[in-house]
C-alpha cells in the first residue's frame, strides 16, 4: 500500500467544526486505488461524516483486514491510529481492541471477500456480541487485487469481465446481519454521498454494532454491462427505503415543526436520527417486516438503500459484560493486583 502524502496547505476560509478542525484535517494520504473506484467516494463520505460529528482524530481507531477496501484506512484521518491487519480477522481484532478501550470510536473497513468469505465467522460473532463499532463493507462483488474472481456477494447471473455468469447464491450482508440480530443495518451506494453521510453519522453514534453495506462498483473488474454491481445497474435498480438526517446531541433542531412523515429516533448518546420512509408503511424497527420487504425487493432485482433497521435498546458487549466505564487500559495496576497478603490468604484453599 504505497502511500503518497498530501500537501498540508489549508485554505484559510475553510469551515471549522466544534474542535476547530477543517475537513482537510480528516483526510489521509493519497489513494492508490484505481481512478473512479467506488471506495474513494465512500472514503470522502466518511471524511465528511467524521468531520461533521467532530470526531477527535486521536479517539478514532481505523481497522481493516486485507483487500482493496482494507487499504482505505490510510486515506482518511491521518491523525488516528490505524491497523491494516490480516485477511478476514478485522472483526476479531477490533473486538479485542474495543474490549481493552471502550472510549475509542472504532471504524472497521472491510470488503465482500474479507467479510463474506474468509472472515464471515468473525463478522457473525462481532454482530452477536454487539461490539460498538461502525462496520463498513465496501461491496463490489469481486476480488480486485487478485484480478477479478467472483466474491460471495456476486449475484446469480452477474457476469465476470470475461462474460462467465456466477451460478452460486450470493451472501447478502444486509440479510445476514438482520437474521443474526444486528442492531443497526444500512445499505448505501458509493455514488450517493448525500445519502451516505447521514448513514455514517448515525452508525458512528449507534449503541452497538452498526453494519453498513455499501455497493461500491469496481471500475476495473466489475463495472460492465453484465454486472449487477455496476454504477449503471445500481443507479437503475436502487430504491430508497429511508431518507435520514442526523442531529447531534448538542444541536438544536431548528425546524420546530416536524416535517410531515418524519420520524425521530433518540440514539443512545442523546443525538437524534430523523428519517422519512419512502415506501408506504416501511418500519425500520420491525425486523421481520424489513426482512420480508428486502427479500421481495431482492427477487425483483432491486437494491434497497437507507437505514434499513435500527434498534437502540440492545446492550453492547461492554454493557452485557458489565465492564467498568473506565477503559481497561487505564485502570490502575493497583486495582488489578490483589497483592501479597491476599495471595497468602487465598492459598489456604490449596493447603
Amino acid at each position: 500500500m504505497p502511500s503518497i502524502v498530501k500537501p498540508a496547505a489549508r485554505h484559510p476560509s475553510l469551515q471549522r467544526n466544534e474542535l476547530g478542525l477543517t475537513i482537510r484535517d480528516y483526510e489521509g494520504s493519497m489513494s492508490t486505488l484505481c481512478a473512479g473506484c467506488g471506495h474513494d467516494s465512500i472514503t470522502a463520505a466518511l471524511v465528511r461524516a467524521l468531520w461533521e460529528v467532530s470526531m477527535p482524530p486521536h479517539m478514532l481507531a481505523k481497522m481493516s483486514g486485507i483487500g482493496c477496501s482494507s487499504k482505505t484506512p490510510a486515506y482518511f484521518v491521518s491523525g488516528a491510529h490505524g491497523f491494516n491487519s490480516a485477511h478476514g480477522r478485522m472483526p476479531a481484532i477490533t473486538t479485542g481492541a474495543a474490549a481493552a478501550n471502550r472510549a475509542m470510536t472504532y471504524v472497521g473497513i472491510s470488503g465482500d471477500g474479507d467479510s463474506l468469505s474468509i472472515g464471515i465467522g468473525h463478522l457473525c460473532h462481532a454482530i452477536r456480541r454487539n461490539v460498538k463499532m461502525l462496520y463498513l463493507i465496501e461491496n463490489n462483488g469481486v476480488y480486485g487485487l487478485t484480478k477479478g474472481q467472483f466474491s460471495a456477494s456476486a449475484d446469480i447471473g452477474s457476469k465476470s469481465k470475461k462474460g462467465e455468469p456466477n451460478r452460486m447464491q450470493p451472501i447478502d450482508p444486509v440479510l445476514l446481519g438482520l437474521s443474526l440480530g444486528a442492531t443497526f443495518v444500512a445499505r448505501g451506494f458509493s455514488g450517493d454521498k448525500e445519502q451516505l453521510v447521514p448513514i455514517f453519522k448515525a452508525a458512528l453514534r449507534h449503541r452497538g454494532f452498526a453494519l453498513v453495506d455499501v455497493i461500491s462498483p469496481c471500475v476495473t473488474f466489475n463495472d460492465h454491462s453484465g454486472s449487477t454491481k455496476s454504477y449503471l445497474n445500481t443507479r437503475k435498480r436502487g430504491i430508497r427505503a429511508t431518507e435520514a438526517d442526523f442531529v447531534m446531541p448538542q444541536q438544536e433542531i431548528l425546524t420546530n415543526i416536524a416535517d410531515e412523515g418524519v420520524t425521530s429516533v433518540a440514539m443512545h448518546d442523546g443525538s437524534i436520527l430523523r428519517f422519512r420512509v419512502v415506501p408506504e408503511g416501511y418500519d425500520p424497527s420491525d425486523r421481520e417486516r424489513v426482512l420480508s420487504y428486502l427479500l421481495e425487493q431482492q427477487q425483483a432485482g432491486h437494491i434497497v438503500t437507507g437505514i434499513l433497521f435500527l434498534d437502540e435498546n440492545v446492550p453492547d458487549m461492554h454493557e452485557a459484560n458489565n465492564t467498568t466505564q473506565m477503559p481497561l487500559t487505564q485502570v490502575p495496576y493497583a486495582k488489578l493486583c490483589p497483592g501479597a497478603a491476599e495471595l497468602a490468604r487465598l492459598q489456604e484453599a490449596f493447603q
Partner: protein
Amino acid sequence: MRTRVNDFAIKLANVNGTGSASANGLLMQAIFRMGIPVSGKNLFPSNIQGLPTWYEIRVNKDGYTARALDYDLMVAMNAQTYARDIQEVRSGGYVLYDSSWPLERSLHREDVSFLPVPLARLCNEQFEGARERVLLKNIAYSGVLVALLDADMQIVEELLAETFASKKSLHDANRRALHIGIDYAREHFECPLPFRLEKTDANAGKILIDGNTATALGCLYAGATVAAWYPITPATSVMDAFRGFCEKYRRDPETGANNCCIIQAEDELAAIGMVIGAGWMGARAFTSTAGPGISLMNELLGLAYYGEIPAVVIDVQRVGPSTGMPTRTQQGDLLECAYASHGDTKHILLLPANPAECFEFAVNAFDLAERFQTPVLMLSDLDIGMNDWVVPQLEWDDAYTPDRGRVLGEDALRGLSVFQRFTNEDENAVAARTLPGVNSNGAYMLRGSGHNKYGGYTEQPHEYQEVVDRLLAKHRAAARFVPPPEIVRMTDARIGVITTGGCDAAVREALDVLGGQGLAADYLRIRAFPFAKIVADFIEEHEYCFVVEQNRDAQLRSLLLLETSAPKEKLISVLVYGGFPLSAAQVVQGVTEKLGVVSAVHR
C-alpha cells in the same frame, strides 16, 4: 515382613463419570495434609461418562514424586479393565476389588494378595437411590484405603467436613460411607498393610495446586484485563480459574463493574485476534489453548511478531498431531511454537516445570511481551496443567510493577513533530511504540504487510531487510531476559542430561538412580527460548548430552541444533511420548540403552 513407611504407589481404576475423582482427590489431599511428599496423576479418557479412567498416587518420603510404574496396590473398581489392572500390580502387591460379584478365576494371580470388599452390596444396604449408591461406593473404598494405609482419621474427617460444610445431609452420608469402608477393612484384613502412611512435616510452606490454576493466578497478578479463548482440553481450566479469580478480585467494590473482559471467542483465530487487538490498544491480554489452537493461531502470531504487538499465549500441550489424544500429555508443540507462522518468525517461549513456575512465568510472559513488543508463548502441558502438584507456596512482591516496555505517553508525544514506529531502537533492538487514544502525534498505520523502519509500506529489499534483521536482533536480545536454565552439577561429570518442562522430576530422580549405579551426569533444564548462552556452553563442556523430552521427533534437540553450534553427534535423544507423564524408570532405561550404544561407538 518389613514395613515400608511413606514409600509406595497405588493405582485406582475407575469408570469415568462415576464420582471417583472426588474420592481420589480426598485421599491425595489427606496424604498431603499428613505432611508426606505425594503426587497424583489423573489418567483420564476423552469422554464424559463410561470409559475407563485411572488415578495414581505416589507417596515418597524422599520427595520423588514423578509417576511411578510399579504399583503396590491396585484399587480395581472397573470390571472392564480388571485383566490389565491386575496384571500391572507388582509381584507381592495387593488388589482391592468389589467382591459383590465374583472375580473370574482366570484373573487370579498367585503372587499378589486379593482384598475382596463387597462395596456395592454394603452401599446398597445402607443407601437409597442409584446415584447415591454409586457415588458413595467411592467414598467407601476410600474408607478401606484409610484403614489399609493408616491414614490420619482426624485429617480425613476434617476434609470431609470442609467439603460438605454447607450440606449436612451429604456430609452425614459421606461419613457413613467412609466408616463402612474403614470398619469392613479392620474386620476382615490385617491393617495396615506392610506399606503405610505416617505423619511427617515435609509439606510445611507448601500447597497442592494444579498448573492451570497457578497460571490463571499469574495472569491475574500480572494485571491482565482482556482474555479471549476457545474451549479446549487441557487448557479450559486456565480460563475457568481466571474467570473465578476475576469474579472475586476484579469486581469494583464501589460500582460492582468488572475490571476485566473475558471473551469466549468463536475459534482460536479470533481468540488470538482479540488478544492482539487488546495488546495493540495497550491492555495486558492473553489466550489459553492447546496444540490444535496454536495451529490456528499461526497466522496471527506472525502478524503480532511482524507488527510488534505484545501478546501472551498459554499453550497447555496435549498429544498431537491433529486431534491426537486430548487427555494425554506431551511436549509436542515446541517447534511449532518457536517458529509459529509463515515467513521468518521466532518467538519467545517460556517452559515451566511445575505449577509454581506456571505462576512465575505467566507474570514474566506479560513483562517480556511488553518489553519486547512480541508474542510470548508459555508452554506447560496436561500433566502440569491438570494434575495437582505439591509446590512451595506462591509468593508475591508488592514492589512489583508491570514492565510496560517502551511506550511514548502524552508528555513525550505532545511536542513531537514526527513519530516513526520502527526506528530509534534501544540496545535490545526495541523501538518505542505509541498507543491509540493518547495523542494524534503518535498516530501511525500498523500493517502486517511489508514496512520500513518508519512504519511506511515498502517493497524495497533493503528497507524490508532492515526491519526483519532488527526483529532477529530483538529475539536474540531476549535471551538475556528470559528465565535462565536450571543447572545442577556433579563432580567431574563428563556427561550432561538436558531436559525441559514437566520432565524435571522424573529426570532428576533418574539421575539419582544412575548416580547410584556410578554414572555421574550434570543436569540442565531449559526454561526458555531463545537459549541463554550458558546452554551452548553446557553442551560444549560435556562429552555428550542426553536430551530427554516427551515427543517423537526430538523437538528440543532439533531446536538446540538449530539455535546453538552444538554438533549433532553430541546430543543423544531419550524420547518418551506415549502420552502419560514421564517416569524415572523410563529415563533410566532410555539412558542406559543409549549409553551402551554410545560407549560402543566411543570405544
